């Protein structure tokens, strides 16, 4: 099992799997299968994958312990960066397709709509983590400081779930489900 985790091909396979939702989206676009409201579809699709990757990233530490597979840590950075990749797509959909790069409109939304305030918060909290994801930055900051900075992912994930919950029209099932999984993943760390 250890050999499998250590093989470089495992990382290649994982990279391909992480990219698959994006490729599926491009394929749907090409096939015109983005529903009658493509902006709404793409927004929800990229948002769903952002939260899923955040949760998968947060699941690495518990899985390492529960399955006794410490090698899983090798994949955590890639998974976290893919969460950032999908949030960038989600954000790009908003500023380009929804707001048409209207800065005034965007600012009005950020301050007036609490679900967008929560979303922007989540995005801003994730950004320094993406920038400092390299080994070079771990050295520059020192492991302890780096570790503390990267704990921001907990707040970012919470902001993401709140953004989802405050944004839906009435059906709260998905945000509540993601929130429950997040709660379990955070509780694992508290009881450790």
């Amino acid at each position, binding site marked *: 099992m250890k050999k499998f985790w250590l093989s470089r091909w495992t990382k290649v396979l994982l990279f391909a799997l992480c990219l698959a939702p994006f490729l599926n989206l491009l394929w749907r676009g090409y096939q015109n299968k983005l529903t009658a*409201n493509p*902006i709404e579809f793409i927004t929800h699709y990229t948002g769903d994958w952002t939260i899923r990757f955040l949760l998968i990233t947060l699941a690495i530490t518990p899985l390492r312990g529960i399955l006794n597979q410490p090698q899983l840590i090798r994949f955590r950075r890639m998974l976290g960066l893919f969460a950032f990749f999908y949030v960038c797509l989600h954000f790009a959909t908003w500023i380009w397709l929804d707001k048409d790069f209207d800065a005034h409109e965007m600012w009005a*939304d950020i301050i*007036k709509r609490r679900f967008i305030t929560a979303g922007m918060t989540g995005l801003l909290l994730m950004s320094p983590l993406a920038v400092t994801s390299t080994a070079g930055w771990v050295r520059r900051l020192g492991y302890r400081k780096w570790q503390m900075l990267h704990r921001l992912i907990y707040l970012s994930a919470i902001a993401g779930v709140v953004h989802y919950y405050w944004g839906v*029209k*009435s059906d*709260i099932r998905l945000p509540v489900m993601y929130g429950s999984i997040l709660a379990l993943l955070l509780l694992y760390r508290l009881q450790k």
Partner: protein
Amino acid sequence: MVIRKASDLRYSDVTPKATYLSRRRFLAAALAAPLAARAGTKLTGIVKSPFSTTETPTPYDAVTGYNNYYEFGTGKDEPVKLAKDYHTSPWTVSLEGEVAKPKTLDLDAVMKLAPLEERIYRHRCVEGWSFVIPWVGFPLSALLKQAEPTSKAKYVAFQSFYDPKQMLSSRQAHIQFPYVEGLRLDEAMHPLTLLSVGVYGEVLPPQNGAPFRLTLPWKYGFKSIKSIVKIRFVEKQPPTTWNLEWPEAYGFYANVNPAVDHPTHSQATEVRLGVGRFGQKIKTQLFNGYGEVASLYSIMDLHKNY
């Protein structure tokens, strides 16, 4: 009784012939009633209406495949799939309350009330997207007049068909069922207010609110209640489903108004779907461009009465 051997049966156990036949008739009628079976049936004798817009109708697949009908799922693509086998016993609608002639009409009677018109209306959803829909129907007033509302009737309350065996529960859909709506009497009697019995020249598909629904082009789409079974004339403003769900977001009047925000988004613009790759962003107009209803609200503060 448990039948273990043929000899367990007695002559008195045989079903009387009359009962046998009437049960078969009942089943045949029940099975013949799927609303989906009517789908695709062309309507005839449709006249064009001066109330129609000249804008191009939204493609048929979008109009009949992108629906908010939470009884059949909260995803826009669910009603077209799940409402396919939706069936009811022969349809009736009751007219009751403050009326001189309370009555119940069946579907045939409703279809014969007035000449069918094609009305191409803009349809603006509160969520911020819009369609242009070629409805087929006749003014709601033709139906309401049948009951002869008295002077006590100030509002009209509507109720949708609800069957927990075929539809989601209120808990699953997160709004109260049966779906209810209401209008002021003058809004209900307005010439623009349509009782839609069809779309695109055909009978209404189940996911669009078969067999008939309201169409109020100057209001947000959630006011246009689907699959109506009960109409009640009342003195006081009746409760409406989305207002009960989230009063700050969904008012009783729900007139399309670019100046009144929804808590999660501005209503100043909308996305016209079915145009271009991602839809077309356009400015929302007061009353969805149907200025002829302005006189109904001339003395009202539309920010307070949203």
